[in-house]
């Protein structure tokens, strides 16, 4: 089962993130980033909390939930729904593809029994793709959470996945 964030945690976290990055319009993306990092996704309930703390008509800053939703849904590293405990992001850009990525993503799909974009029933894995991660010199490449794996062959996939509980 995928875990959803709790209301109290959300308020606390938003408070911290706003304190850290400033109650400013241009701090919105770093703040969303903190929340995404902490929960693995951005709970919609966090948006009004952020808005309340940044909206400041006296300083000419007007913010609505729609602004935040709009920004949060734009960026690929943010998710608006809960993901699995471990998130795999496979680079599907041309260099990795040319260097053998096609076989590796197939191996990942087979091993996990997931299509791209899916989260496993038990909430352990989410299999996503990403655009270039900038380590093309060691392609094919994928990320498991924050760990990056390069020069991957399909044979290595089971061993790498086994490292995660």
């Amino acid at each position, binding site marked *: 089962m995928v875990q959803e964030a709790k209301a109290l945690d959300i308020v606390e976290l938003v408070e911290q993130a706003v304190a850290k990055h400033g109650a400013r319009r241009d701090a919105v993306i770093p703040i969303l980033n903190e929340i995404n990092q902490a929960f693995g996704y951005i709970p919609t309930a966090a948006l009004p909390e952020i808005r309340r703390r940044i909206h400041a008509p006296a300083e000419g800053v007007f913010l609505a939930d729609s602004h935040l939703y709009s920004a949060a849904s734009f960026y690929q590293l943010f998710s608006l729904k809960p993901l699995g405990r471990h998130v795999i992001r496979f680079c599907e850009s041309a260099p990795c593809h040319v260097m053998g990525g096609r076989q590796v993503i197939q191996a990942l799909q087979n091993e996990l029994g997931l299509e791209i974009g899916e989260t496993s029933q038990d909430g352990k894995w989410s299999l996503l793709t990403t655009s270039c*991660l900038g*380590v093309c*010199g*060691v392609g094919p*490449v994928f990320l498991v959470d924050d760990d*990056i794996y*390069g*020069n991957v062959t399909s044979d290595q996939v089971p061993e790498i996945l086994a490292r995660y509980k």
Partner: protein
Amino acid sequence: MKKKIRSLEDLNRFREKAFEAKQRQTHLGNVQVIVSLGSCGIAAGAFDTLKAIQQQVDDDHLNEVIVSQTGCIGLCGHEPIVEVITADTSKVTYGHVTPEVARRILREHVLGGKVLEAFVVEV
């Protein structure tokens, strides 16, 4: 609190001091083992390599070995890359350094003085 640099002269004095400190290190006969820790290197397993080196340094009490890091040099095809700088020989760059190879480098090159030709990368 470090003293602030207020002029080019300050900067050059700072530089001289840094140079002397570095000189002192090599004069003392220390060996520098530098792991290339760019993202490419990390993706290729440089953290595992670094861990192995540190483990070995601890286990064998290699006090004169200074382990440090550098960025990526652009030789992605050879990652993970480890450089060994000793006072007598100049810099040797190794490529494809797995934890196993790293341990061998420490044992054979750093302690034994024998360069592992098979893993040397020409730069």
